[in-house]
Each structure stands twice: as structure tokens, then as C-alpha cells.
């Protein structure tokens, strides 16, 4: 598996082999994705959806095949329900601006959890501020799980919408989204799921989840940057007004008025990120073809090993200890600043993330300035964990 990811095989700072443990920020890309994008630019480069010529037809076919590959991966009923965006952030903003904002008013509420990424807080905050609606926060427990009782009460108040992550980027907690969506629907509350952190780790079936909207990014699931997806239930997507105006999203334009194209094109104005879409299609097929049971068993094994090894280090505390987790290990030292640790780990070839992980409200809730986060993907091994533990030993020697 590692052989398929060229970026893993390099040294940093001249002679230190890289250990890439920042997969929650972005995953590395397999050769099939790189090759597919290079092939598009080398042999198929052409604009989509408008040309009468052969190249444009080939590019359009590849583009729409990619949409079908993404639909297959998440089990969307139709590829028309797969909207391409610039990333998960744009997908969430699209829903906030076209679904929430026109319907929200004073007295309405939107609920988000206390552990959301800023991308799943700020768009809702903006929609609430513009409409006089209120943003409410679903509280969490210290171990990084949701306070389900508090959540039930919030949903019983029938907010306009619930926006929540599938998996926490900072702590790795897998939320019970399926049962939460059931509870929300019992109260008539639609649910927007931020799936940025789930796609590389869990099989996602949007119909089984019954998610109203499901948003994710290409680059966190072995695909290119600059491309993301918004899935939505057909009736909900079809009811959305256009987000951006421009080419490709129209039916007919005149100065008296414009009529708009059908889904999915109505929500995709302008020339899209064609190479990105085609690369994402290749990534979706790469993920779809994985032996998910074997991958999950491998990732669980590495995470379990990392937890055991890190927990054995004096002065180190794991942050986020939910029983259901993906491959994220967040931790702090009692007396070493995360930035100091991250700087030394970097020099040792270990790519980790330090800081607040775009979850400042969560860090404040946990009373932490930030954490050190090692996040694994299917190509990481126990050897990588051993390198991390050696690195942390060095950090403690230097700052102890």
C-alpha cells in the first residue's frame, strides 16, 4: 500500500526519512490519482459541457464519470445529487447561504456541536447573524463524546437545523450520526453532516444514514485539493436557489430574466475544476476498491498501538478518549508547549500538527492552548508509531 503513495518516500532536512502523521489535515495521493490528473491535462484537456468537438466530449465524459464514481462511493441515489464545490468548507457555506439563510428568522435556532471545526461553525454563525436567528451549542463530555441527553433536549426544541461532524478532526471521535439523524428527524429537524474526516476511514452510505446534506473534501480522501462535494436529498437540493451565477448553471439568459439549469449544474457556476473532479473520481474508485474490513482492522490496530504507547509516556495526557474513534491521537504534555514539541518532532522527520486544529471553542472547552495531533491513514504502520514515540522521548529530554 505504501508503495502507491510517492510522497511518503522521501527524506526531509537532508537525510531524515519522513513519517507523515498529518492525515487529518490532508492525505497523500496515490499514483492512480496523480496519473489520472496528468492524463487529463496531457491528453483530454478541454472545457466541459459545451464543446461539439471530440476532446470536449471526452473531458465531459470523464467529468461525469467521476460524478458517478463519487455517487457510487457514498451510495447516492443519483449522480445529480453530487454537487462539486471547492471543498467541504464551500459545501457547508452553500447550504448555509442557500438553504438556511433564506428560511431563517428571529426566533429560529441552528444547533452545532461544541467540537465542530470552524468551517462548520462560522457559516452558520454568519447565516444567524444575517437573519437574527440564534446559534445553539450541543455540549460535550470531557472525553470528547457528545452529551446525548443535552442533545436530545436541544433537538426536542425543534431547531431549524442541526449541523454536525461525522468524525471530530481534533479528537477523532466518531459520532453516532445515524441514530442522531433519526432523533432529529423525529422532531422534523434536517441534519447537515460535515464528513471531511470520515471519508478516508469509514464506509459512508448517505441513504443508510438518511443524511439530508453530507459535505466532504477531495484532499482528505486521497484526492486533489480544491475540489469537494455536497450531497443532498434530491428535493432539498432541487429547492435551493442558485448559489453563484454564471456560465454552466443557466438554461436561458436574457436581460428580461434568466432561467436556470437542472441539478447538478444549477449549483455549479463557471468552468469547474475539471482536473480536480477527474482526480477525485479516481480517488473515489481507489477508496471504493479497498477492502474496508481489512483497512479498518489495520487502522484500528495502529490507533490502539499508538494509544498504548503514548499512554505509557510519563507526563503525557491523551485528549479525546471516546471508545469510538478514527485514527486521530491528540495529546498534550504537562509542561511542554505543543509548539516546542511539534518543532522538534518536525526536525526528526515527523509531520504532526500542533495548535487548535481550527477548533478554538473545543480547545477553550477543554481548557487547552492546543494539542499535538498525530493522525494516521491506511498507509501508516506501527513502525511510524515507534518513530513518534522515539521522537517524543527526544522532546522530553530536550525540554525536561
Amino acid at each position, binding site marked *: 500500500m505504501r508503495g502507491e503513495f510517492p510522497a511518503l518516500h522521501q527524506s526531509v*532536512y537532508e537525510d531524515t526519512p519522513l513519517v507523515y502523521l498529518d492525515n487529518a489535515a490532508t492525505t497523500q495521493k496515490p499514483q492512480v490519482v496523480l496519473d489520472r490528473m496528468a492524463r487529463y491535462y496531457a491528453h483530454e484537456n478541454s472545457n466541459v459541457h459545451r464543446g461539439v468537438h471530440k476532446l470536449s466530449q471526452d473531458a465531459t465524459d470523464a467529468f461525469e464519470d467521476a460524478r458517478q464514481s463519487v455517487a457510487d462511493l457514498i451510495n447516492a441515489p443519483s449522480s445529480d445529487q453530487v454537487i462539486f464545490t471547492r471543498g467541504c468548507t464551500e459545501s457547508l457555506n452553500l447550504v448555509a447561504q442557500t438553504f438556511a439563510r433564506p428560511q431563517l428568522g428571529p426566533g429560529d435556532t441552528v444547533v452545532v456541536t461544541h467540537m465542530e471545526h470552524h468551517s462548520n461553525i462560522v457559516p452558520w454563525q454568519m447565516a444567524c447573524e444575517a437573519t437574527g436567528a440564534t446559534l445553539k451549542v450541543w455540549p460535550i463530555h470531557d472525553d470528547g463524546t457528545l452529551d446525548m441527553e443535552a442533545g436530545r433536549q436541544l433537538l426536542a426544541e425543534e431547531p431549524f437545523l442541526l449541523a454536525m461532524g461525522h468524525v471530530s478532526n481534533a479528537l477523532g471521535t466518531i459520532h453516532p450520526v445515524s441514530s442522531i439523524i433519526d432523533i432529529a428527524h423525529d422532531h422534523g429537524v434536517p441534519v447537515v453532516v460535515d464528513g471531511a474526516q470520515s471519508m478516508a476511514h469509514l464506509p459512508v452510505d448517505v441513504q443508510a444514514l438518511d443524511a439530508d446534506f453530507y459535505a466532504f473534501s477531495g484532499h482528505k480522501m486521497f484526492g486533489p485539493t480544491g475540489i469537494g462535494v455536497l450531497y443532498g436529498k434530491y428535493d432539498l437540493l432541487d429547492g435551493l436557489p442558485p448559489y453563484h451565477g454564471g456560465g454552466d448553471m443557466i438554461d436561458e439568459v436574457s436581460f428580461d430574466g434568466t432561467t436556470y439549469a437542472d441539478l447538478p449544474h444549477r449549483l455549479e457556476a463557471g468552468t469547474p475544476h475539471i482536473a480536480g473532479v477527474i482526480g477525485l473520481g479516481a480517488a473515489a474508485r481507489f477508496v471504493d476498491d479497498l477492502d474496508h474490513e481489512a483497512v479498518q482492522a489495520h487502522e484500528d490496530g495502529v490507533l490502539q498501538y499508538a494509544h498504548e504507547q503514548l499512554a505509557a509516556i510519563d507526563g503525557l495526557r491523551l485528549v479525546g478518549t471516546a471508545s469510538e474513534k478514527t485514527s486521530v491521537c491528540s495529546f498534550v504534555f504537562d509542561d511542554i*508547549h*505543543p*509548539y*516546542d514539541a511539534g*518543532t*522538534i518532532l518536525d*526536525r526528526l522527520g515527523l509531520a504532526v500538527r*500542533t*495548535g487548535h486544529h481550527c477548533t478554538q471553542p473545543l480547545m477553550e472547552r477543554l481548557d487547552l*492552548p*492546543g494539542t499535538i495531533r498525530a493522525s494516521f491513514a491506511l498507509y501508516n504502520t506501527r513502525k511510524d508509531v515507534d518513530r513518534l514515540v522515539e521522537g517524543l522521548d*527526544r522532546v522530553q529530554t*530536550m*525540554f525536561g
Partner: protein
Amino acid sequence: MSDASSTIDERARAIVDDFSLFDDWMGRYEYLIEIGKKLPPMEDALKTDATRIHGCQSKVWIHTARDQDRMTMQGDSDAMITKGLAGLLIRVLDDQPPKAVREADLSFIDDIGMREHLSSTRNNGLHSMIEQIRARAARLAESAEPASDSAVSSSNA
């Protein structure tokens, strides 16, 4: 700590000489941490929003003031490496004429193997520290009146 009779360039050269004694990055980092530890303590009262350097993961404060025709500075950080970086700047720039601080050549940071910290995207505050110190030095150099930086910084906040 700083010798008022030596110039910025002389002090920078002395630091480069010190760092050249280490032949690997770990020794250089350990020495950087030592420099941070040797920084004279900064009074908590001086750790305000006006002296806080934003744009870094750790908290870092640099207080600058005017002493006759010289610019003095103190600093602190909650992270040791960042404190060491602040310590480097203070060793070189403390008690120097504001004009010299504003125009100081700080390429010694590159020469001691800490170039990666100079990037404006590094989030460690060194870039912001330098920008802030230079901006304050420019204002001190221009103003005839002695002023403490809390007054200067409030217009900048």
C-alpha cells in the same frame, strides 16, 4: 546582558560564532532554548494586548521602550523555542538606537541554521516579532519625544 558599546552587527557575529560550535541541529536548538532561559524575566504587568505579538501558536510578548536615544526591549513566551527566538532578537537589538533597529540586518538567523523560523507562514511569531519591533523602532526614530510603547502600540492595535 547586552553590551551597549557593541553594534548590532557585532552582536550578531558573536551569536553566529557561538552557534558555529554546534555541528548538529539538536545542539543548536538546545543552545537556543538556553538563550530563552537566560532572558531576564518580564514583568507580568507588561504582558498586555499592546505588547502581545499575534500570529503565532504560542503566546509571545515584546515590550519596547525608549531610554534616551536608545530603544530597550524585554520579551517572554510560553513556548521555549519561541522564547529562545525572542531572546536572540533581544540580544542583538536591545539598547540600540531605534534607527539602527529599524534598519538592522538580521540575516544572522539564517546563518545559525534557524532559517525555517523566518518564514512568514511558520506561525511561530518570529516574522511578526521582527515586523513589530521594526515598526515600533520606526515610530521611535521619528518621534522626538521619549515614549513608552504602550502609548505607541495602542494606535497600532
